[in-house]
Structures are given as structure tokens and as C-alpha cells.
């Protein structure tokens, strides 16, 4: 399987070059996206096959890359889980793009980068040494940056691209440090060699902290998330789906690979920052999703929330592992992995919905949409599946992973450290808050876009999207439902990866009756998606039938929203701002929300205005001071550009002597 996967990864990279050569070919779009879809599907099958057959780690050594070192590629269970995730996400996005790409004005701004982006992500997942990992990581960052800049004529996009480039460069630098520390002075950059190195706890903590910063900046962990809500929505929608659904997961893969596989034991207290950062990221991310007025930015903020949830799960797994409780660590890690998979499914689906809406109406702002359920009924149904799943409602897949996570949170009293015993339930409370706010955010998302009446002419004249796009969305929606009612299959699939990471896995779920989920015997709780599904379908169908039977079958049309105020103007509807107002008021300190009412002076006929400003505190309190400090330092250091040759020599000489003196004193 590794040979096949490596060949596909290289094939995708080669396809990028081919796409660049296909300028002017009218079918280029279909060819590139079609081939990418086939390749991605093959990757997904390779991942599933590796997991299902429980094949051990397979390696291959390619003579490309650094001379005499080449590239080591390894496919083990952990890689396979993410290969499966990447394959499914990539296939869906590519199929969607076959239809979506027809509407692109400049397809050649996307085509040469798209397959390479997929290929680079595959290489990151398959990498078996630090060089290959970091190189592929950087290629992935750069290609996604090029994709973000597709619509480069918009000033906003260019700003987002710049911010993304800076953050990506920073993240890779930090990862470089982390891997350098892990390799140690002997420079064993192969993962195989890194596993065997004995590390002091202090070094392990430092590496894990660096990984949190490096991988976290790519995944969108607080406070390194600032680029994400700007960059993800700026890309074309299928690329947004890939970046949010898949690339953030590749970043998680990097963290899991190091924290659970390469690094070895980590002190228990290092799980605290991971859990705290995860929980805070979840809450802050979803709060911003609740108040943002742009559909795709709402989705991007929700990605931040889900990354926070997954990081909290990983932190729990670290805590349980450090306490020698592999079964519970397996529970938390399974929750994290399943949630990563689920988030890929529903977030890709929702970004495609946003893309379909964008295609149909040309608008992303929630307050310009509305009533699309009449114009785009199929998309509306598929979107309903997506928002139900992301709101973690049973019987869909979002519920399963959150339920597993909360089962792990409820086991926290078994931890031996009092600090964790207090902290984990508190973090669980934050996660519950985030889950509730997520439901609120997606009620708003769905309600404002699809329900009510059209708020603009474009929304009124929208049309259903093409079959390819619908097919991709339907496939993802189907997978969401299947993963919700048959979660055991997925849990059994990831079991070898969990085993690899924490040395234990959940009991096999395949033989349980009614596809019931029984995670750990000690948990004493179980959940059957199928039974809930049957119940939901039955009770929902029966209620509908009873209502129609007992009331009236007749379809009645009445004035909408006619609650004693029959104003025909659609802007009188409950809008995006109205939905977010209560949350914005309650959470005003977190959101730095300010409301001002501008009253015109007496006699002035202009209308009064109600203005709302919110601000990301991380940006204001952390980034702006850093930017100001850099500005100040560079202005001052500018004088260094105008020294004489002798002064430059003196600088070199002085710093050499200084370093030597330091060395002499230090010794």
C-alpha cells in the first residue's frame, strides 16, 4: 500500500505541473479535478485497506530530496487514518470542483496548485523523516497560500494572504526547532531513530510546547488562529473545504505523531496547557462564529472551535496516558480522531453549501440571503444534514464524537492529580458551552440563509447548483449519516492507530447488538445511533402524519412573519445581527463588543444609526503590540544599512569576540 500511496502523492504533484502546461485547454478543469478525485479516492481506499487489514508499518525509501538522505515514507495505522480522511475530503472537494470549477473566471489561478496541495498533504502524512515532513509541510503551506490568493484583486484577500504567509512561516520555523530538538545532537532525523532517543522531561515538555505552537498555528489554536478566519474563506469554496476540513487535520496529525508516537513519555502537567488551550479555543472560536456576518467566515470560526474540541480530547488522552490509564487514554484519543474525521465530513459539506450559495447568488453576507430553501431545495436538505451534524445532534456523526469526548471527561475523577480532577470538569463545562453555542451558530447560519424571505434580488433569483456539486454534497451528507448510525465501524477502523499511540484501544464494536456503542466497560453507558435514528424517523414521521391527519391535509399559504406587523419589507425579518445580539451582549467582554447609537441632531432628517463593533482580543492585545515592536525595531535598525565597511567588519569582529567571551565565561 505504501508504494501505491507514494506513487499517488507523486502523481498528484506531477499533475500540478501538467495542469500548469494545460493553459488554454478548455477541458483542463474537468481533467485535473477528475484525476484528483480518482487519486484521492485511491488514497482513501489505501488508508481503509491498511486499517482494515491491520497491516504493520510499511516503509519505502525514495532517492529524491536531499542527496544521500532521500525521502523516507512510512505508512502505519496513524498515517492511514489521516490518509483515509484526506482521501475522502480530497475526493469530495474534487468532485464538487468539477461542477464548481465551471463558474470560475480564471481556472488557471487554481488548477496548477490544487493537485499539488493534495499531494503535499499526502506527503506530510506519509513522511517518515523530519526533512520530508518539514519540506512537505512547507510546500503544503505555500500551495495553499497560492490558492488563497486566487481572488488576488481584492485588497482583503491580499491582506489575508500576507498574514497567512507570515503565520505559516512562523509555524514552520517553530516545527523546525521542535524536530531539531527531538533529533538531538547526533541528528537522527528519521522518525525511526527519534523513537529510540531517551529524552529528559524538560526537553520533552519543550518539544511538546513547540509542537503546540507550530502545529497549532496551522490548525488554528488560540491565540494563533488570527489568520484562519481571514484566509480560509478567501479561497475558492472547494479549497476552503480542503483547508478547513483536511489541512487543519494534517496539522493535528503532526501534533499527534510527535506527542503520542515520537516523543515518548511526557509529564502529566503538560496536558494542562493542551486541555486549557483546546477548551478556550473552542469557546472563543464559536463565539466569533455566532457574531460574524459572513457565511464562510462563520464556518471558518467554527473550524477553530472544532480544532479546540479535538485538542482538548488530545490533552485528555495525554493526561490519562501519563497516569498509566491506557484504556481511558484510548477513549479520549478515539474521540479526538473520530471528531477529526467527522469534522472533515460536515465542515467540507458546509463549505460546499456556502460555495453553492455563493455560486447561485454571488453573495457571502448572511444579511443578503434568505429563503433559499425555495430556490435551492436539494442544497437546503443537504445543508440541514450538515448543520445538524455540526451541532452535535443525534443521530448524526457530530454527536458520536462529542459523546465519546464527554464520556472521557466524566472519567476525570479517576485521575490521580487533584489539579486535573478540578480542571478537566471545568474544561468539560467550557466544551459543553461551546457545543451549545455551536448549535446556536448553526441555527443562525441555516435560518438566515435558507429560511424566511429573500433579503436581496440575487437571493430571490437564485437557482439550484449543478449535479456534480450536488453529488459531492450528497456523498458527504450520506457519510455523515452513516458515521452517525454506524459509529462502531469507524471506531474499529481507527483502533490500530489508537493502539499505536497509547498502547490500548477501545473494545471492538462490530459484534454489539443494534450497532450499539459501548466504549469502555467502566463507563457504564452506551449509545446506539441506529436506534435513535429509528426513533427519530418513527416519531418524526408519526407526528407529521398525526398533524396532517388530525388537523388538515390542505396546504395553506398565509402571509409570512405576519405577527401583527404586516410590513412587506424583507429587512424586517429576524436577521443575522438579530440572532447574535443576545450572545454578543452577554459575552461583550470576550468579544470586546461596543454598541453606539448615533443620533442626528434635532432638525436633521438623517436616520439614527446603531453601530456595533467587535474585536478579536488576541489581535488587539497580542498581535498589534508585536507588530508595533517590530516596526519600532526595524525603524531603529534601519541605521545599520548606512554604516561604513570598516564598521561592518567591526560589528562582525565585535560579535565574534562577544560570543567567545560568553563561551569562556559560561564554561
Amino acid at each position, binding site marked *: 500500500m505504501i508504494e501505491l500511496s507514494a506513487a499517488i502523492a507523486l502523481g498528484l504533484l506531477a499533475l500540478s505541473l501538467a495542469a500548469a502546461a494545460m493553459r488554454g485547454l478548455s477541458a483542463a478543469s474537468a481533467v485535473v479535478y477528475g484525476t484528483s478525485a480518482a487519486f484521492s479516492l485511491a488514497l482513501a481506499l489505501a488508508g481503509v485497506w491498511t486499517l482494515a487489514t491491520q497491516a504493520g508499518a510499511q516503509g519505502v525509501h525514495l532517492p529524491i530530496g536531499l542527496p544521500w538522505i532521500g525521502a523516507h515514507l512510512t505508512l502505519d495505522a496513524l498515517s492511514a487514518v489521516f490518509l483515509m480522511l484526506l482521501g475522502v475530503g480530497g475526493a469530495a472537494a474534487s468532485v464538487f470542483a468539477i461542477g464548481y470549477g465551471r463558474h470560475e473566471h480564471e481556472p488557471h489561478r487554481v488548477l496548477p496548485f490544487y493537485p499539488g496541495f493534495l499531494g503535499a498533504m499526502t506527503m506530510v502524512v506519509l513522511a517518515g523523516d523530519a526533512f520530508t515532513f518539514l519540506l512537505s509541510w512547507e510546500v503544503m503551506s505555500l500551495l495553499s497560500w497560492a490558492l488563497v490568493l486566487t481572488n488576488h484583486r481584492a485588497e482583503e484577500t491580499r491582506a489575508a494572504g500576507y498574514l497567512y504567509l507570515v503565520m505559516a512561516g512562523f509555524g514552520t520555523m517553530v516545527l523546525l526547532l521542535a524536530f531539531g530538538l527531538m533529533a538531538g545532537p547526533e541528528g537522527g532525523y528519521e522518525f525511526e531513530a527519534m523513537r529510540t532517543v531517551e529524552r529528559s522531561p524538560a526537553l520533552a515538555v519543550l518539544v511538546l510546547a513547540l509542537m503546540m505552537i507550530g502545529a497549532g498555528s496551522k490548525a488554528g489554536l488560540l491565540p494563533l488562529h488570527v489568520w484562519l478566519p481571514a484566509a480560509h474563506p478567501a479561497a475558492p469554496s472547494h479549497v476552503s473545504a480542503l483547508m478547513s476540513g483536511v489541512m487543519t487535520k494534517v496539522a493535528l496529525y503532526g501534533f499527534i505523531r510527535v506527542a503520542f508516537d515520537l516523543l515518548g513519555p511526557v509529564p502529566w502537567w503538560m496536558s494542562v496547557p493542551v486541555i486549557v488551550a483546546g477548551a478556550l479555543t473552542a469557546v472563543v472560536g464559536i463565539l466569533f462564529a455566532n457574531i460574524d456576518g459572513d457565511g464562510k467566515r462563520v464556518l471558518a470560526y467554527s473550524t477553530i472551535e472544532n480544532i479546540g474540541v479535538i485538542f482538548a480530547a488530545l490533552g485528555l488522552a495525554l493526561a490519562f496516558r501519563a497516569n498509566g490509564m491506557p484504556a481511558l487514554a484510548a477513549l479520549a484519543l478515539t474521540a479526538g480522531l473520530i471528531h477529526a474525521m467527522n469534522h472533515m465530513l460536515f465542515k467540507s459539506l458546509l463549505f460546499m453549501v456556502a460555495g453553492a450559495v455563493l455560486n447561485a447568488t454571488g453573495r457571502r453576507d448572511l444579511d443578503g440571503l434568505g429563503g433559499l430553501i425555495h430556490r435551492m431545495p436539494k442544497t437546503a436538505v443537504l445543508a440541514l444534514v450538515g448543520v445538524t451534524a455540526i451541532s452535535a445532534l443525534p443521530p448524526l456523526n457530530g454527536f458520536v464524537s462529542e459523546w465519546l469526548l464527554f464520556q472521557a471527561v466524566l472519567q476525570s475523577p479517576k485521575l490521580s492529580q487533584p489539579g486535573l480532577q478540578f480542571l478537566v470538569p471545568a474544561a468539560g463545562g467550557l466544551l459543553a458551552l461551546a457545543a451549545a453555542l455551536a448549535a446556536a451558530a448553526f441555527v443562525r447560519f441555516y435560518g438566515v440563509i435558507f429560511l424566511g424571505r429573500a433579503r436581496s434580488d440575487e437571493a430571490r433569483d437564485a437557482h439550484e447548483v449543478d449535479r456534480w456539486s450536488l453529488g459531492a454534497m450528497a456523498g458527504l451528507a450520506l457519510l455523515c449519516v452513516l458515521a452517525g448510525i454506524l459509529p462502531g465501524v469507524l471506531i474499529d477502523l481507527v483502533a490500530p492507530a489508537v493502539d499505536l499511540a497509547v498502547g490500548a484501544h477501545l473494545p471492538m464494536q462490530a459484534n454489539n447488538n443494534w450497532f450499539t456503542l459501548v466504549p469502555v466497560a467502566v463507563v457504564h453507558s452506551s449509545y446506539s445511533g441506529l436506534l435513535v435514528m429509528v426513533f427519530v424517523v418513527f416519531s418524526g414521521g408519526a407526528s407529521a402524519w398525526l398533524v396532517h391527519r388530525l388537523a388538515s391535509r390542505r396546504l395553506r399559504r398565509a402571509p409570512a412573519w405576519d405577527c401583527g406587523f404586516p410590513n412587506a419589507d424583507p429587512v424586517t425579518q429576524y436577521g443575522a445581527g438579530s440572532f447574535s445580539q443576545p450572545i454578543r451582549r452577554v459575552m461583550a467582554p470576550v468579544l470586546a463588543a461596543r454598541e453606539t447609537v448615533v443620533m442626528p441632531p434635532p432638525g436633521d432628517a438623517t436616520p439614527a444609526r446603531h453601530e456595533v463593533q467587535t474585536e478579536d482580543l488576541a489581535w488587539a492585545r497580542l498581535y498589534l503590540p508585536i507588530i508595533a515592536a517590530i516596526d519600532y525595531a526595524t525603524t531603529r535598525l534601519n541605521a545599520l*544599512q*548606512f554604516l*561604513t*565597511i*570598516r564598521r561592518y*567588519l*567591526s560589528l*562582525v*569582529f565585535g560579535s*565574534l*569576540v562577544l560570543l*567567545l*567571551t560568553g*563561551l*569562556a565565561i559560561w*564554561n
Partner: protein
Amino acid sequence: MSSYAFDISHLLAGGLVLVSFMMIYQDRMYALLNTFALQAVLLGLAVAWQAFTQEAPHLYATAAIALVFKALIVPWALHRVVARMGIQRTVETVTGVMPTMLAGMGLVALSILLMLQLTEAAENALAREDLAFALSVILLGMLMMVTRRNAVTQVVGFMSLENGLILAAAGAQGMPLVVEISVAFSVLIAMIVIGVFLFRIRERFDSVDTEALDAFRGERQ
């Protein structure tokens, strides 16, 4: 035999440092070049002695290269440059000789302190002393580059710095000949390039004082 070996190489390496100090207080260009040639001769002897005691014949080649290039060709070429430019008397120092000498002593103290400390684990006392002296020569060469205004003196400082590198390499037992030859050639080429530039600079600005260049830098506001 072994005690002699140590004493003689100690003497030669120490001689190199001493000549570095002599170069610092020279105030005539020809005298400076002669001192530099003397340092190169000492270097050749030191390397040849290393070749003899280490029984490493390829070091004789290094010694020969040092003698031919550094003691003969480079000083001769610089002599010609100086003669053609008529700058025999112009050794312009930035600070006085005394502060420079004091700084040089400080540097030697620093490098001996540092090297003896760092190489404590090494068995070979000879290599340790050699490295300490070599670092001193390197630092003194840099000091000379920093404290002189004239481009020719800066070149001499650079060449003297490179002498220190060769001394370190010869003491280290095991630098391949290829590396030494390539270093020697790159230094020679650097000499040629710098020489060409010297004439260009003088053609333009009627001076080889590098400060004169600064007024012509484009980005200066």
C-alpha cells in the same frame, strides 16, 4: 624527541602570534608587507614541523604552498601595488597603536583561556596549544582589518587571519589536502579580486581609503 617536538612547534606558533603583534605597530607599508612575509615563513616552518612530527607527508605540500604563495607571491604582488599607487607611507590607523596593542593582548588572553578550557578533554597538549595560538592569530588579523582604514592593510589583515586558519588546520591532524589546497587557492583568488578592486577604487576616487566609498553609496539619504 617528543619534548623537542612540543617545544619547537610551541616556539613556531608563538612566533606567529608575536609577528601578528609586530604587524599591528608597523607604520610603513613596505615594513608591514615584510612582516607579513616573515609570518608566512614562520607558518611554513610550523606546518613543516607538524608534517615531520605527525609523519604526515601531505602537510609538506601545505607548507610549500604557504611558503610559495604567502611568503613570496602575495607580498611581491602587494609590493607592486603599493609601489604603483605610491602609498608607501600611508598606514592610517583608526585608533592609536597602544590601545590596539592592549586590545590585541586581551584577545590573546581570551583565546588562550577559551581554547585551553574547551579542549581540556583532548589528549594532545600540542594540538591544544596550537589551537589557542591559531585563534589568537585569527583574532589579531581581524583586529588589524578593523583598525586600519587603508584597503591594502585590510588585505594584509585578511591574509594574516588566513595564516591562523592554516595553523589550526595543520595542528588538527587530519584535514585533507584537497581542502587545504582549495583554501589556499581561494585566498589567492580573493587576493587577485581585491587587488583588481583596489585599482578600480583608486581610479575612481584617487584614494584607497575605504571611507571614501561611503559617500557614493546609492541608498544614502
